[in-house]
């Protein structure tokens, strides 16, 4: 579900920019760091879980408004270089602010430890993340599918010029979509913090998986990102049960297999 969450956010931004957002992993890491900083400041995990991704969304909003917006006319190469440079700046910024050494963060006490599901033993916190991430994916999908603004956003991804000609402020739409994508990266990072710990490079690992999800689902296809996220998660779990060493490679094997048959991805049309 975390893969789907990351993939959905990246797909949203990729759909708008028509280029991969290399800073998406860094935004994921910022979400994790902000969660811990907020918990330390206010002492409340639940409130921090709400506030940290909002902070990342605001950062995304600032990035789009102050940086990417100025490059829409300059072409994809510039946007690509901008997001790549931004990823490096954010990663270095994390090291300057929080230091180079990683650390662990524990979930609230009642979510610690594991539960015996009969067929397997599973951490309570992972079950919690599964539910929350599932609800977030559902909520995002409902917003995009069932609301007017979501429909405009999808239309903007499909045909920017047409939406612009209808009198809709396309720039504001892009800003909101970028902030929403950043929010999804931020909350994925915040939820991941107690599972994988926090370190300045944590976004790099997740970015690779997020790109796989986007490519597998079809570039810019939101439903495809959700389906691809679930598919590689399930594939990884199944392979891990029989051949643990190959579980990470399974992610890329699934992508390669699907792209050989459908180069445009599961739900892609171009």
């Amino acid at each position, binding site marked *: 579900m975390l893969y789907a969450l990351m993939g959905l956010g990246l797909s949203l931004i990729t759909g708008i920019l028509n280029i991969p957002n290399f800073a998406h992993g860094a935004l994921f890491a910022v979400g994790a760091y902000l969660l811990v900083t907020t918990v330390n400041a206010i002492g409340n995990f639940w409130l921090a879980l709400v506030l940290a991704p909002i902070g990342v969304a605001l950062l995304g909003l600032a990035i789009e408004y102050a940086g990417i917006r100025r490059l829409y006319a300059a072409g994809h190469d510039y946007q690509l270089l901008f997001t790549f440079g931004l990823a490096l700046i954010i990663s270095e910024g994390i090291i300057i602010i929080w230091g180079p050494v990683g650390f662990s963060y524990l979930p609230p006490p009642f979510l610690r430890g594991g539960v015996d599901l009969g067929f397997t*033993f599973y951490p309570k916190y992972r079950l919690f993340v599964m539910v929350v991430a599932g609800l977030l994916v559902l909520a995002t999908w409902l917003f995009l599918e069932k609301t007017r603004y979501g429909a405009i956003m999808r239309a903007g991804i499909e045909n920017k010029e047409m939406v612009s000609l209808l009198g809709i402020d396309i720039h504001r739409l892009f800003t909101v979509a970028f902030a929403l994508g950043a929010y999804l990266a931020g909350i994925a990072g915040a939820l991941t913090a107690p599972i994988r710990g926090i370190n300045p490079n944590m976004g790099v690992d997740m970015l690779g998986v997020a790109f796989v999800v986007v490519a597998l689902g079809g570039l810019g296809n939101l439903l495809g990102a959700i389906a691809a996220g679930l598919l590689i998660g399930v594939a990884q779990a199944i392979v891990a049960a029989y051949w643990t060493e190959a579980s990470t490679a399974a992610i890329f094997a699934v992508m390669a297999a699907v792209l050989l048959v459908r180069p445009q991805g599961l739900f892609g049309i171009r």
Partner: protein
Amino acid sequence: MSQRKRRDVLKIGALGAAAAGLGFPAIIRAQQKEVVMLGIWPATGAFSDVGPILDRGMRMALEERDMKIQGRPVKYIVRDSATQAGAATRRVEEAVDGEGAKFVIGPWSSGVALAVSEVAKRKKVLHYFSGGTEDISGARCHRYSFQWAASPYTAAKTVVDNFMKANPKAKRWHLLVADYAFGWSVEKYVKEVGKTHGIEFVGADRHPLGEREFSNYVQKAAANRPDAVAMINFGLDAVSGAREIFNFGLTPKVPLIMTWSSGVEELVQLTPEIRENIWVGSNFYYTADTPVAKNFVKNYQAKFGNPPGYAPSAAYGMTRIMLAGFDKAKSVEVNDVITALEGIEVDDLVGRMRVDPKTHQTLRPYFFMRCKPKSAMKHAADFADIVATGDTPMPAEYAACKDIGGF
């Protein structure tokens, strides 16, 4: 340009060449006096978090000597190993050919170190390494490379013997092993020593270097219902594994052994709750009771604010023992220093240390610690108590270095 002008240029060129002929030999002579030492540390890629602190350790050892050895200035240069064999070997070759480096220390990954060791052999430069592979002082031993870390056998013997002494009923072990040279070496001897205690290895999963998703491995470990889980991995792999084992609720009920840990660098990344019932084997721990360690730890803490872990200590220790080789040889020639190091005995960072002349393995103590519960910690870095040290050398029947060879 006129004929006259062209002639002037030629004159100036000739004068310049003459000046260069007089001046350059002086520069060359000055360069020859320098002893160029190379630290090949990871600044990028896997272990990039450790590169800067490895550099600190080597620099501190050289600064203790005022950057001089045998009356000559030491030129310390650093190159990025990138934890990639190709990049590391290319940069070492460039440093040897271009900078005149003759003494190489590093890198930090066993697999990369084996490749660098081949360069040292080919270029005839002295190479010191600290890591878990047994091949540097084993099957791929040669006259130019030395191993500072305890042998995997010494480490496995220290860890398994002392853990079983404290937990005699823990007979069912599950292993999580990093799938490269270091992991294979230590795993082999953990199983060998384990047999003598009647340990049953109910599972042994190998994971790639840089693995961050351990849930699948831990699920399998939990399903085996082991009495103990032993990890043979390192750095962020070990941190991620230990965290996930806690998340699944195995620790603190089931003891976790970090067989070959960097100590402080890994333990600081875990919370006290996660560290509970973790047992740690390491080549160094900062409470080591030796005069050299006490002085080093005091200076390191004064300079950087935190205690040193295995990484800076290994860089410091390797540099010190190499410098002791210079002292013994009373020379800065590679072959002389190598000959002096063979069989050298010193009381140094971790206690009594001797270099086996037949294998170039440093025979030295290995540390075994138990992490403290939060309530027993006196300060934030009070992670563990040293339970025991062990220095049993590798038995002759296991030694794969049959002939160290010549120069």
